[in-house]
């Protein structure tokens, strides 16, 4: 997890514009995250290991399949980012439609740009079924957004927030 954090730290700085964008470095950091995803993450959380320095929430073992799915998705999106690194970042995330804003479930068009008003009003987030091939031609920053969403989704479900 520490290697993921280090790679993500460098990626975050580039995608937020705080350091210059370097496509080779993006691809390399994405590969590092890919190599640390999936089982490399899940084996760190043997059942019942709530002693010691863990921040895991016991929910992790009740919903192990979801944890595995997110750990695998991290690998998938990291692979997608390694491929998309040379695509020009697109800039701002597209504005959702009213329906998306108000909570309706997003379709794949959401991913590629247009968010609907339904998104705004409560549509669900990015389509989790997407594969790495679909990311190859996406702007790199959109793929990095998927990576961040994956990290956050897993921490939101399975990590206890302490000061």
């Amino acid at each position, binding site marked *: 997890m520490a290697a993921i954090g280090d790679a993500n730290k460098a990626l975050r700085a580039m995608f937020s514009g705080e350091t210059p964008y370097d496509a080779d470095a993006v691809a390399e950091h994405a590969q590092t995250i890919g190599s640390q995803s999936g089982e490399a993450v899940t084996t760190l959380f043997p059942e019942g290991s709530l002693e010691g320095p863990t921040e895991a929430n016991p929910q992790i073992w009740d919903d192990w399949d979801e944890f595995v799915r997110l750990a695998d998705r991290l690998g998938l999106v990291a692979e997608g980012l390694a491929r998309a690194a040379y695509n020009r970042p697109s800039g701002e995330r597209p504005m959702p439609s009213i329906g998306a804003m108000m909570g309706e479930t997003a379709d794949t068009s959401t991913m590629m740009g247009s968010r609907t*008003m339904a998104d705004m009003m409560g549509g669900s987030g990015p389509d989790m079924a997407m594969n790495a091939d679909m990311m190859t031609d996406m702007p790199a920053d959109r793929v990095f957004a998927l990576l961040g969403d994956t990290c956050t989704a897993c921490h939101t479900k399975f990590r206890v927030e302490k000061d």
Partner: protein
Amino acid sequence: MPIVVVLAVLAGAAGFGYGVLVLWPIDAGAAIESSRKGDPARGAYLARASGCIGCHTDIDGGGKPLAGGAALDTDFGTFYAPNITSDPNVGIGSWSLVDFARAVRKGISPDGEPYYPVFPYTFYSRLTDQDVADLYAAFQTVAAVGKPAPTSIIKFPFSERNGLKLWRALYWSDTSFQGDPVRSEAFNRGKYLVEGPLHCGACHTPRNPFGARDVEHRFEGSDALPGDGSAPPITSKALADEGWTTASLAYALVSGLTPSGDAFGGLMGEVVRDSTAFLTDADRQAIAAFLMGEDPQS
């Protein structure tokens, strides 16, 4: 004579305190003009900013948008955010704009019942008339769901709703937004968003045993969030000490990522996913600039 009157009132309050609470009228303040037109697109944006979607939708449980939220475990009981779809019976489809404005900004239901402050009307009181009309227009677009949300299970004595009148009198003053005239427009936009719609202080300001925010310690963090979570301090100093900048904070509100390469979890992960990720870059910059205490370059 006046002293006698005061004593008589106090004696009455002591002897018949409950009756007094029951009969104590709630001042709903000035109403919004009922003919004000709202823009649904602008309202939907505000609904995201205000956390309506995240709290009133059981997202992890696959619930329909705004048909009622997941359980919120607090020291006062387990709250379920109600169905606020356009269903006329179990949602808010029968509400007028005036009803809606009074609920959102004053915390009073169309039946005249006070809401628990778990609904952050104490922040939404700063919403402008136009913002409220826009929100109302956006809620008209939401598909009706005819199933009510679960009933909240509130512990005694908090289950006595008339006690909320006392709470309101002690801990709430109906304030409109106060901008800072020496600051830039962007800084004040951030101030409005943070103090009003985004209600950051609901989690990041500690609360007293009665659930009222300790405003003397605004943004100093809280370790008593629903579900045993904690919220770090977000005063300008605390943020700077943790290495945040306006740029990195604005980026965290869309990406969920912190300067160290970590990602938010818990309730803040939900806030980014369901709320701040939907905002414009300009608004996230304004929020960050206000929290960092910096005026953005104009």
